[in-house]
């Protein structure tokens, strides 16, 4: 139920994001794929990652100290943390300029400017776990699911600043004027 609800929310947000992306002039398919990955797919992945937090809070749940050494729940908590802080800051920004979240293009602009921080933060807390020798994954599916999504953030969604190497590769393969 939690996963279905989060998937629905993710798709709804991705739809709002896509309104911004698709309103631009048509671009070639590989550029579209890149925008899909960093746009819609990343939005859905972020909400599905956050779903790990309520899933972990259901009983039987580990103690907080134990849970914070599990890479899956840690990745989900980090995504939630970045989301909450960035969204609060963005709300202040919108209020200052007399706009709201429902203003067309606002969620897309928020996502484009703030999503880049998620992946380096997930990578950093995982690095900290490894350096402190506290990497203690649980054997259940919830933590495994969180780990897979954390890995998706680092490898597939390709965080800033690595995303631009992909841009370079695309430009080299398909020629200039792609983006």
């Amino acid at each position: 139920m939690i996963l279905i609800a989060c998937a629905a929310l993710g798709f709804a947000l991705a739809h709002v994001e896509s309104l911004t992306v698709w309103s631009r002039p048509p671009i070639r398919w590989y550029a579209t794929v890149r925008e899909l990955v960093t746009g819609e797919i990343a939005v859905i992945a972020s909400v599905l990652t956050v779903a790990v937090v309520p899933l972990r809070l259901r009983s039987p749940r580990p103690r907080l100290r134990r849970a914070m050494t599990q890479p899956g729940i840690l990745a989900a908590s980090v995504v939630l943390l970045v989301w909450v802080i960035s969204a609060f800051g963005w709300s202040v920004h919108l209020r200052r300029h007399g706009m709201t979240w429902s203003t067309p293009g606002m969620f897309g602009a928020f996502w484009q400017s703030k999503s880049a921080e998620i992946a380096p933060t997930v990578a950093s807390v995982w690095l900290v776990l490894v350096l402190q020798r506290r990497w203690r994954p649980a054997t259940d599916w919830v933590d495994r699911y969180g780990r897979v999504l954390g890995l998706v953030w680092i490898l597939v969604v390709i965080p800033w600043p690595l995303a631009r190497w992909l841009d370079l590769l695309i430009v080299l393969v398909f020629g200039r004027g792609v983006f």
Partner: protein
Amino acid sequence: MPSLSRPWRRTDSAILATSLALGLLLAWEWQSHDTWDVEAVLGLYPTTAAVKAEIQQLRQEFEHNRRDHPSMRVELALWTSRIAESLPQVLSVLSLGSALATFRRPRSLGRRPLRRIGVLTTLLAAVLVLGICINEYLLRGVFQSILGPYLRMIFMFWNRLGTTIGFAILAAWIAAALSGTWRARNDAWDRLGLAIGGAWLLFLGYRQFISPLLG
């Protein structure tokens, strides 16, 4: 396992003072020069002339507006942003200097010191600064050599770097506190790391909450 038991020495103070001076110099250079010139100094060609001209025009309009309608609030916001936006440059060099002072010989880098939150913060900040800066330099260089003028706003670079490091340190601190691994010793190395981490968080707070308020 080796531990960080080396006392604070004059060389450490010299490293920190030098890194602070270099950081301030970098921030001053950045504030007093056009960012396009900074790219040229680095051997990277500036971005397209059209973008440069557009930004120049926006700046001129802002200056005219500021002269015609002087406002205490605008001046305050300008000075706050000037100081706050110099922070990533100062902190980047200071983080590298702190890491050099903390992990230099005669003490080898073992794993046990990394259980201490201040030392860990120093390492995390230095790794991120190095990684992001080297990546940016290489990326710009490769783009420039292969594709010619590279359209990417370099003045956004320090803000993004500061926000990324701020989030990483915040997440690492929260995770350490909640997992019961927050171990701080009352020595210079830990205090230095905590101070650096606190400064990065201060910048994050400015970017996320104060900057949008000032507009």
